[in-house]
Every structure is written in structure tokens, then in C-alpha cells.
């Protein structure tokens, strides 16, 4: 159990955290503006993974176009869900409870729609990057490396959009107060359209990376529960929080699992409860104020 072992586990944790980050950013984006937990996000990721699978196997396209196709497919799906499911609720100013229920309904629908139309058989991506590289005693799969790089690049681009562009300004304004920004002439509908599109595209990427590394099946949407915990841990509604929370959770999870693998999930949910009790706004979340 030398330093190599420790570093290897650290790398494992960062890989896992990178994937959580891609997923939890989508949650956080939606939460920052609409103040509800979008549980349909897992379904969008799952569909992204399937799009990638069929693009690679049935259409025989190379990796990069397939990867982009995933983003487009999932982005479209997220927008469609927003239009059909959340938009009517939004128009009515329904309480966030209804959004969560609808999101749950959408996620049940997506999961079972895939089972009914495709089937429940787990599918395996054709090998794309199956080699591995060794640095010292640490092994790192090329797909894992790719996952970290893609996560980092995608998240950097996202941060750039949000911090430096006009659209980003509108998003930040809306997340501060949707009502006030709408009054200031920001098109709230458009902002929501954009965040769902961005969240969806990232979900598509996450889906494909997930599928390459693991497996594609209709129930992978449930894995996103943990990325949701990561988002809470980092602070719901905060993008940097979601990313930091995800990576930290990934690393902690790996170390707990290497200590006693049975405690892994118990630790994740225990951490969730602990964070909520001690500091509900998470590591970097905005302070929740009682809106009277």
C-alpha cells in the first residue's frame, strides 16, 4: 500500500468526479434559474448514451461526429422536455413541487420508453480507445483520460459563456432574480431555452462518455442520483460548486470504497444528510432566503 496505490486511487477518484461534474452541471444550471431539481436529467443522459451507441454501431460514424451527435440529440431532447412538460407549468407559476413531480414522470417515461421501443438488454460500446497509458505505476485508460479532458474543456467553455458573454450575463441575472431580469428586458423564455440546451448538450456528452467507459442500459439514468448529491454537496445552483463538489465526492467515494466497499453508498447519502444539516447551501451555494 505505497504511494502508488494512493495515487492510483486518487486518479480513479478524479475520473469518477469528472463524470459526476458533467452530469451535475446540468442539474445546477436548471436549479440556478428555475429553483427545482430536474430529475429528468438522468433520462436525458441515458438517451444521449443510446444516441452515441447507435451512431457508432448502426450508422458507423467515427467517434467525433458521434460524440457531437450525442450532444445535439440530448440537447434537443432537453429542450423538448422543457417545452412540453415544464413550460405549461411555468406559464401558470406552479410551485416547484409540481416541477419535481413532472420531472419524475418524465424520467419514468423516458426510461420505460427506451425499454419498450429498443429493449432492456445492456449494450456495450464498440472499443474506441481501449489502450491504456502507464505513468510510473499508475495505469490510466485512454478513455478515462479523454473523459477528464472532455469534462474540463466542456466545463471551461461553459464557464466562459456564463462569465464572459451577454447570454451568460442574462443567465446570471435570471438566476439572481428571474422576475426582475424579465422586467429589465431579458427574454426569460430564451434564457431557459438556452440553459436546457446547454445542460442537455453536456448530458449528451456525459452519456456517451459514460457508455464508453461503462455500459448502456435504460436504467443508467439512476446513476445520476449521485451526481445530484454532488450538486447539493457543492451547493445547488452554483456551477463552480457543482464541479468542485463532484470531483471531491468522486475522490472521497473512491477512498471510502477502498476502505470498505459496502459503506460507499451509505457514505454518499450520509454526507448528503450531514451537508444539509450543517450547511444546506453546500460548499459554494447561494444562500437560500425565505422568499416571503
Amino acid at each position, binding site marked *: 500500500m505505497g504511494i502508488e496505490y494512493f495515487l492510483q486511487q486518487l486518479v480513479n477518484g478524479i475520473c469518477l468526479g469528472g463524470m459526476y461534474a458533467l452530469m451535475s452541471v446540468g442539474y445546477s444550471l436548471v436549479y440556478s434559474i428555475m429553483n427545482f431539481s430536474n430529475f429528468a436529467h438522468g433520462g436525458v443522459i441515458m438517451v444521449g448514451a443510446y444516441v452515441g451507441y447507435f451512431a457508432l454501431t448502426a450508422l458507423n460514424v467515427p467517434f467525433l461526429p458521434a460524440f457531437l451527435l450525442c450532444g445535439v440529440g440530448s440537447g434537443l431532447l432537453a429542450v423538448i422536455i422543457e417545452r412540453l412538460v415544464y413550460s405549461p407549468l411555468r406559464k401558470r407559476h406552479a410551485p416547484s413541487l409540481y416541477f419535481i413531480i413532472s420531472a419524475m414522470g418524465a424520467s419514468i417515461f423516458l426510461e420505460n420508453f427506451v425499454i419498450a421501443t429498443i429493449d*432492456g438488454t*445492456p449494450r456495450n460500446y464498440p472499443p474506441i480507445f481501449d489502450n491504456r497509458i502507464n505513468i510510473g505505476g499508475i495505469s490510466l485508460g485512454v478513455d478515462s483520460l479523454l473523459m477528464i479532458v472532455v469534462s474540463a474543456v466542456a466545463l471551461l467553455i461553459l464557464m466562459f459563456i456564463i462569465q464572459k458573454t451577454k447570454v451568460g450575463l442574462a443567465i446570471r441575472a435570471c438566476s439572481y432574480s428571474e422576475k426582475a431580469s424579465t422586467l429589465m428586458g431579458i427574454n426569460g423564455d430564451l434564457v431557459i431555452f438556452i440553459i436546457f440546451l446547454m445542460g442537455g448538450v453536456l448530458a449528451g456528452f456525459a452519456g456517451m462518455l459514460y457508455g464508453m467507459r461503462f455500459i448502456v442500459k435504460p436504467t443508467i439514468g439512476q446513476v445520476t442520483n449521485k451526481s445530484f448529491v454532488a450538486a447539493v454537496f457543492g451547493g445547488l445552483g452554483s456551477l463552480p460548486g457543482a464541479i468542485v463538489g463532484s470531483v471531491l465526492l468522486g475522490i472521497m467515494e473512491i477512498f471510502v470504497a477502498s476502505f470498505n466497499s459496502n459503506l*460507499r453508498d451509505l457514505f454518499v447519502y450520509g454526507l448528503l444528510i450531514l451537508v444539509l444539516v450543517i450547511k444546506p447551501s453546500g460548499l459554494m451555494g447561494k444562500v437560500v432566503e425565505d422568499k416571503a
Partner: protein
Amino acid sequence: MRKSMKKLIALTLACLMLATLFVGCGKKDDGGSSGGDTIKLGWMGSLTGDQAAYGTCESQTLKMMVEDLNANGGLLGKQVELICYDTKGDAQEAVNVAKRLCAQDQVCAIIGPNASGQCIAIQSVLDQYKISDMSTVATNEKVTMQDGQLKEYNFRVCFLDPQQGKIAGSFVYDNLGFDKAAILYDVNDDYALGLKDNFVKVFESKGGTIVAEEGYTAGDTDFTAQLTKIKEAQPQIIFTPIFYQDFIMIHKQARTLGIEVPMLGGDGCASEVLFDAADAVDGSYVINHVSLVDPAGDAFRKEYAEKYNGAKMELNGYMAHDAFLLWCAAVEKAGSDDPQAIADAYSQVEVEGMAGKIKISAEDHNPVGKSGCVERIDGKNKTYVFETYIAAD
């Protein structure tokens, strides 16, 4: 105006629901009245959920066989009607389904479900209705016996977890000559637990050592933490009593971590899907009820693939096939579709199935003289290589 529209929609929805209620009743009524000239066979299993692939294969195999049987004149001169229900892989749903099959559809026997937990759960329903269940791949000991007491209406066509654990243990120690093994298993799964316990027992009693024992929970997809630990322990083989999707993922991750030792999976691992990850799983072993490359099954596999758009035959299909043959033989032996007579006949018939000669013991309702087949996965040619047969008893 809008309000009345909404009300109208709500009303329509409510009416639709009521309508489905009556339609449901009506349809079942028809089925009941024509019950005299068909023999009803029930099947239950997972058509949705994590194990959907197994269940789908079982039900499709049975549908295919029932169609063939009916085309050839049916059974006892009657047509066979197959009623399939989904259990969602949930024990609670299984109880509901069993009640529906027994009380509502009044089947003469049930085949399935494909998981031990569900088989154990439905026992009280079977006892109440005196309708027998022939389970396909439920390998848990408690399925047919509990605390030394025989469950009168539970049967199975597969071997048991202890037997499978024993096969695994002796294969690793005797055939491969390894004495250091690691285990990676799903702590949530009674199947994995049963296999693991019995493997450890047999392997250690022979003189082997378990160098690492790691668990995970169902739904986990990242095994790198456990695998890194296993790598440190330097086993000669990793025993993985789990289902094939996890088997594939563990292989992929182990290979990227630089673990090159083979793995040994139980009967839940054997699947055609393995070959999609051919490079990773190359060289590992699976225990099986039947040899998946046995030429005797060629015609069967071909018919299945033709009927279902090239679908791959899973192990469950073979077991469903054998269970169905047993049921046919039992009905013929009983000479009627009386559930009790069929239950009694199960232990008196003998059929030649995909897994060899099958005879159900009257003492414990398990098949006698089963042997397990160990096969090596040949990733390059995408096929299995038959290794050896090991007697289960």
C-alpha cells in the same frame, strides 16, 4: 371556457380509466369461458427493469415453443395458451402476478420467474392455490427447501448456489491449479451472496486462500477502487458471481487498471452480449448450465434468431426450453391440465433437454445429477471454448 375545457379533459380521463377497467374485465371474461379447450400455462419474469434481457429471452423462447407446439397439434389434443406477465424484477410485483395467474387466469402451472427472490416470495400463493411453479434459473437453496422443509409447489430445472459455488471452487483449485483468489460481488444480491459464500467454503477447505474480498452495491458502475485494491493483493483469478453487465464493466475497468488475471463468473455472466466487449473478457471463464456452443443447440438458436430479428439466445432461453419440455411431459403424464396432477407428475417424468437428461427429484424438487459446464471466453473468435464438465453433487 378554459375551465370547462379542463373539466372536460379530466372527465374524459376518468371515463377512459373506468373504460379500461371494464374492457379489462370483458376480455378476461371471454378468456374464461373458452378455457375448456385450451391448456393455460403462465409465465412470469422481468420484462422491465435491470434483468429485462433475461426475462425477455425467456418469454420469447416460450412463445416460440408454444407456437411450434400448437402448430403441431398442441398438447393432449388441445391448444396451449401462454400468459406472460412482467414482474419488473420486483418480489412484490411477483406476488401480485402470481395471484393474478393463479386466481384470475387459472393457469395449470407457472414457469419462471428468473430470480430466486421472486420465487421465494411467491411460495405462499402457490401453496394456497396448489399450482406448481417451475423456475428457470433460481439457484438459491431456499427456493425449494426452507429449514429442512420441502416447498410442495416449487420446482426448478437448474442447479443450486451451493453446487455452483462448489463447481467454481473446485474448478479454480483443481482444474486451474490456482490457490490465490479474489472475489468481487454485489452485496445487495442474494444470488451473488449465495455463490460467494459457497465458493469461499469449498475453495478454503481445499487449501486455497481468498486474498481479497470486495463488494459493491447494485447500480454501482465504477469498480476502480475495489479493483485497485484487488490488484494490490495479486490474486491469480478473480471470482465474480454477478450478472453479465457488471461482468463486462469490471473487465473493462480491470484491464485499464492493468489487471490481466482471468475472472470466473457464475451462470449469470454467460451471455452473448459478452462478445461486444470481446477484447476485455478474452480468457475469462464462465460457469454454465449448458454449453452455449453445443452443436445440439444450433437449430434452436437459429430458429430463435430467425423469429426475433437475429436476437441472441441467452442462457435463460435454454432453461425456459427445458422447463417447457418438462411441463409438456408432465401434462402428458398427468393426462389432464389438473394443477395438482401436473405437480405430482413433475417428479415422475424425464426429458432430454438442452442441459442433458433432466429428472426432478421428489425429495427436494431439484434436478438430479446435474453437472456444471465451465467455458472459457475466446474473445478473438467471439465464441466460447468448452473447458470441462464438473458434477454438481
